[in-house]
């Protein structure tokens, strides 16, 4: 889903945050910058370092959402953390997304709950719904689905809703 940086109307605040990631070189690639939104692609081995930087230097203090998306053609899952800031100066309303692609056959990535405690339930939900394994999370397991659920994680594209035509 990587998009090139869009247009020239991107405000300077987003651009200055975006340029902060240049110090990581290849480790963090800015996927897009638009008004109040910024998405950065990271590798799973760099996720903890960059999340720590986002928390401590950029002052994003809570996780608003975690999205797990299945890309069966690429045989990859994309786990996207979205961070917001309550106390960071001038960061209200801004959403910074850190996206990490992991192979479907080995969907492990480090848990970020020691840096962002607010990611706790989001990670549990994502683990269950898409099958990602957040190493270091103390309590992955049944959360939203029935305790006797025995099918594959339902947000994988291979899981089809019974009685429905094709999904997108």
């Amino acid at each position, binding site marked *: 889903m990587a998009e090139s940086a869009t247009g020239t109307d991107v405000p300077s605040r987003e651009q200055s945050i975006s340029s902060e990631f240049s110090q990581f070189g290849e480790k963090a690639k800015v996927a*897009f910058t638009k008004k109040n939104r910024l998405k950065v692609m990271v590798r799973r081995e760099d996720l903890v370092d960059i999340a720590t930087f986002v928390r401590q230097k950029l002052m994003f203090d809570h996780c608003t959402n975690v*999205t*797990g998306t299945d890309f069966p053609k690429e045989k990859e899952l994309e786990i996207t953390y*979205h961070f*917001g800031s309550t106390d960071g100066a001038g960061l209200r309303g801004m*959403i910074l997304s850190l996206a990490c692609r992991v192979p479907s056959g080995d969907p492990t990535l480090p848990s970020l709950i020691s840096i962002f405690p*607010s990611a706790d339930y989001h990670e549990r*939900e994502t683990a269950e719904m898409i099958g990602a394994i957040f190493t270091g999370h103390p309590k992955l397991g049944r959360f939203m689905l029935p305790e006797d659920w025995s099918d594959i994680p*339902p947000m994988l594209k291979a899981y089809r809703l019974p009685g429905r035509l094709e*999904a997108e």
Partner: protein
Amino acid sequence: MSIPLPSSGLLTEPISEDKLTVSIGPQHPGAGHFRFMITVEGDTITDCVPDPGYVHRGAEKQTEYRNYVQSIPVLERSSLTDVTNIIMPFCMAAEELMGVQIPPRAKYLRMIMSENQRIISHLYWLGIQGIFLGHSTMFMWPLGDRDVLIDLGQMLGGARITYSYVIPGGVRNDLPSGFKDKAFKVYDYLESRLKDYERMFFSHPLFLKRTRGVGVLPRDEAIKLGVVGPVLRASDVRSDVRIDEPYNFYDEVDFEVPTFKECDTYARCMVHLIEMRQSMRIIRQCLEKMPQGPVRTKVTMTQRAAAGEAYSQVEASRGAMSFHVISTGGPKPYRTKISVPSFRNLIALPRLLIGSHVADMPAIYWSLDYWPVEADR
């Protein structure tokens, strides 16, 4: 592909002689089907494990099988007390991906419906909080008065609860004749009723005794846990998507965002009360300021969205509601991820209950305005 997951952590563990594990729910512990396990030692709660998911209907998955417009009735059923505010961010994300601009009058109509919905949701919350505190009059009054506002919503949206009023491209229809007069009448009535509520309930010694200093969530912890909405504002954080990232015309109307330094159940209740007044203030301004013009831009049933992604958020009744919509260029979303305020506030429940008395549990639980159907999606 099967991914191994550790076994369930929700089994009842052996407990010592002086500890007892109690399962609260899932048969409607207050509002909605939800279970939480508490461990009590005497009268004190020593552990709390929430177990959501009893009303999980896979709303996110269902959007992958439907066109953008078709997803609306599915999504609004996830939050029946707050239908406008759960659809609006989805429509905003769809409009961003489709490159559709909506007319100014539609934006004002969205604000009117959204704020009316906030009052409806808060009155429902107030009724349940009343009965949880043993105050049956406070259950009857708000639920009765809520009907008057539902009538108003019906005038605008055509249905009483699930009106699917907000659609990609604008809103479904314009104001009916006589709406403005009726709305002013209804809000004048509600203003006087809120004064009655205040006299009857919010200044009642019983209410004060049972809420002050109960379930305190300090400011730094509220931010750390990422709670939203009235819960966050009651913890002395002036945060509201309507001012942080104004959508529609929230930057052109005057309203206050209430905050309290107490950070307790009392503060969370008072935030709800003040927000109802502020919502009426916003609607009055919208009705006065609203320009004439069209109320929707045409978006066809099979309209395709550009490939890409959009992250939109609004301030729903219970807090920030955000949608992450990923499109591959088709007429259906490739992936929709909803972050609902109830789910985000759930993380505060164990934090607040552990160390509290059992008798305070209903007041604390409902002060979070946790709506299981919304949280489970």
